[in-house]
């Protein structure tokens, strides 16, 4: 863990500079979401967007990958009725190729299904468990709570009540807010095993894990489903490429669509191309040193996820004031997404902000 004092002034100056550069079209790698692209070079626009430069969990927009995607022939996927099956066959092999992963028991998750983003899996999970109460740790992906609230679905934070027999649990691994395994993960699993409560593990940030050994015991009977997404690892987040792996074959809307052969072939094809050309931990290999560099320069603490660091908020806006971004459940007060720093290394070097 870094012992350097946090350089909040530099963090802030970089945020302002990146957003101003975005308005001036000077970024090495432009943003992809309206909430971090200033409409114009005005103080107000740049200020508003500078407050969310390090927010979100989005992937690193690595230029090698973005250039590769530019040259992918998507038309051929449309003509390939086997593309989703190819994608589903390839995924487990690809994920197991990483020698640092010890996903004990993953072979028991034999049923692989393309998902149009993790959100499609989540929605199917909600639907399948609509009469149960969903449980989640505080700081989990806000989208769950936002959907549950708007759909009048029962839910409660794990911290607020014991797990009961009518509950189902979702948990990201590593945990979305901190980039590390949640401190309550093991006890939650033990409790779910004891009560026969089903757990879905969301591996959204797994490919960006930096540990020498990424270990998780999936033999626990309570863990019924695994969610993987490409969206936080590769810059394909708007293509909705994700995978569900389950112990048992499900027959829910997502599976029925895949069985009908109407899965999104563009998403499947893109995912397959990515897998065939990049290692699952490509970003870790390329950016782990950069993560350490920036944590040292800015006085932040590296997490186990290569594009995340944690530290004190550099602005109170969206943290302790005007909370929270987009959703009242979107908590990310002290998490920093370092992706914009990695992506704009050339610009930041030129401006002498890199060191």
């Amino acid at each position, binding site marked *: 863990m870094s012992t350097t004092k946090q350089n909040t002034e530099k963090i*802030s*100056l970089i*945020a*302002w*500079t990146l*957003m*101003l*550069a975005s308005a*001036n079209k*000077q970024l090495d790698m432009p943003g992809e979401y309206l909430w971090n692209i200033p409409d114009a070079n005005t*103080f107000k626009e*740049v*200020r508003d967007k*500078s407050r969310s430069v390090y927010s979100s969990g989005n992937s690193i927009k690595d230029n090698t990958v973005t250039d590769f995607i530019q040259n992918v022939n998507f038309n051929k996927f449309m003509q390939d009725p086997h593309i989703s099956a190819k994608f589903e066959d390839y995924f487990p092999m690809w994920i197991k190729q990483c020698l640092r992963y010890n996903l004990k028991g993953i072979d028991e998750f034999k049923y692989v299904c393309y998902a149009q983003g993790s959100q499609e899996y989540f929605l199917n999970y909600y639907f399948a468990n609509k009469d149960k109460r969903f449980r989640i740790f505080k700081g989990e992906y806000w989208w769950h709570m936002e959907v549950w609230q708007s759909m009048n679905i029962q839910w409660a934070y794990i911290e607020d009540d014991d797990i009961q027999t009518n509950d189902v649990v979702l948990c990201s691994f590593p945990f979305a807010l901190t980039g590390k395994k949640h401190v309550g993960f093991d006890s939650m699993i033990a409790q779910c095993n004891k009560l026969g409560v089903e757990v879905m593990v969301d591996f959204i940030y797994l490919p960006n894990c930096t540990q020498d050994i990424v270990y998780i015991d999936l033999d626990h009977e309570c863990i019924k489903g695994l969610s993987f997404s490409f969206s936080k690892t590769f810059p394909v987040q708007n293509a909705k490429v994700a995978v569900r792996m389950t112990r048992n074959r499900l027959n829910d809307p997502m599976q029925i669509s895949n069985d009908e052969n109407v899965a999104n072939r563009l998403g499947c094809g893109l995912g397959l191309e990515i897998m065939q050309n990049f290692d699952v931990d490509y970003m870790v290999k390329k950016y782990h040193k950069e993560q350490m560099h920036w944590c040292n320069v800015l006085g932040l603490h590296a997490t186990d996820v290569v594009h995340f660091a944690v530290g004190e908020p550099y*602005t*109170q806006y969206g943290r302790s004031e005007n909370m929270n971004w987009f959703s009242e459940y979107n908590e990310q007060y002290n998490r920093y997404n370092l992706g914009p720093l990695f992506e704009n290394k050339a610009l930041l070097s*030129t*401006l002498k*902000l890199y060191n």
Partner: protein
Amino acid sequence: MSTIKLKFKNINSVNNKAPQMAVHVNSKELYKGLVLEQHVIDVDLQEQNILKIYFINKEDPDTVIQDGKIVNDLNFELENITLDKHDIQDLIWKGQYVSKDNVIPSCLFFGPRGYFELHFEYPILKWILKTNHEDHNDDPTWEQDYNYYIEACQLLNKIQKK
């Protein structure tokens, strides 16, 4: 060199006589002539500045009254001021209209002969942020954020010039 952009509306003539104005900044005349919908004027600004817009050709006969009501009048309204690309928005109401011995605060209407007067500071953006915060007490980080913005501008300007 800075620029002042003035926008006017409801420019009313009387008997083929159109309103005319003189624009002064810090007592220096920068424009004299007809009031058009928009004027863009170059100016050298100082730390403290006074903009004055004189209504120079209004005479008593330019107000036509019938049965006790004004039926025709030579007048115009100031709509908007942009200083160095910064629309000062509500701060335009900081101005006042001075006519003979009358001072009408927050008046953008040029009816009687007189002048509109606005005091402002340079840099413009800093003045806007500071004044808005003084008025509403809702932007405590304005100065810190202003400094970041200016520093970022200076950094990026360097590479633009290369």
